């Protein structure tokens, strides 16, 4: 019986807290563990980023061509790895804080960073898959031309 009047409130106001879905103890525990793993992945990505920076530095000091390779390496992998790592780090720390201090605004920000992570990685995956597909089509086309000439 207690649920009968609840749908009447649905969708009213943009930021009005909704009463139906609750952050129960089990949800909180799951969120805390998720944030710990996210922090682990963020740290791992930052370590990988550190290795790449280290390699790029040695490439840069090895000579003029090495400098170019180093800059490309650092620029490309830096951008591709830094943002996911940063988004994971922010999601982990903000979610942890939001749950620990029971702060809705901070928790909201945490979920926003999880969304940003998915947006970034998803777009990256689509771009990479398109790139592979383009190479495949180009390769088939070139191979077709080569065999066609014989």
């Amino acid at each position, binding site marked *: 019986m207690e649920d009968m009047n609840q749908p009447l409130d649905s969708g009213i106001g943009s930021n009005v807290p909704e009463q139906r879905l*609750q*952050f*129960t103890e089990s949800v909180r525990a799951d*969120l805390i563990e998720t944030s710990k*793993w996210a922090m*682990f992945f963020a740290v791992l990505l930052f370590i990988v980023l550190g290795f790449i920076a280290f390699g790029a530095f040695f490439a840069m000091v090895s000579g003029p061509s090495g400098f170019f390779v180093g800059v490309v390496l650092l620029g490309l992998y830096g951008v591709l790895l830094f943002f996911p790592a940063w988004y994971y780090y922010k999601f982990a720390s903000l979610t942890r804080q939001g749950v620990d201090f029971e702060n809705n605004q901070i928790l909201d920000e945490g*979920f926003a960073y999880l969304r940003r992570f*998915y947006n970034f990685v998803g777009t990256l995956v689509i771009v990479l898959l398109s790139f592979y597909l383009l190479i495949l089509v180009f390769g088939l086309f070139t191979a077709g031309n080569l065999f066609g000439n014989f």
Partner: protein
Amino acid sequence: MEVFDNQFSQAPHSEQGLQVTRNMRLNWLTTSKWAIFFSVLGFIYVALMFIVSFALMPMLQTIMSMSGQDAMARLIDSAGVWIMLLFLLAVAVIFLISLFHLRFASNIQRAMQYDSQQAFESAWRNLRNYFRINGIFTIVSIVLYIIGTIAAGSILSGMGMGTDF
């Protein structure tokens, strides 16, 4: 009145602070769409790897035999089953990861659509499982990679010492 009082008194005090807002719902909706995309990609990858796993060992063995590396061909012949099992285990783990991802996405969407607390809790349980299995898989991969590197290094140095006379 008693019923209402009971209803409020039963609610844990901590639930007063954290509440689901519209912003959260919008973020979860986008996240769940991407999660479905990733899980579908994962399932396609698993299907491809499953097919490849049965073709990989005979292919490697033929290549090694044809190129005259009989020792490697014999090694694949004896250890091939174990390598294939390890490969299939990795494929099974990737399948589980994709499954948890898909279940997180579908449950969070169902929770938002029908205001289902059960689906809401299941969604976060699945996201936790997804992160947990992903993390353990990553740790095991790193450890195996380090062991493999050390083993390959010692084998190579052993071979170098054997020929160095």
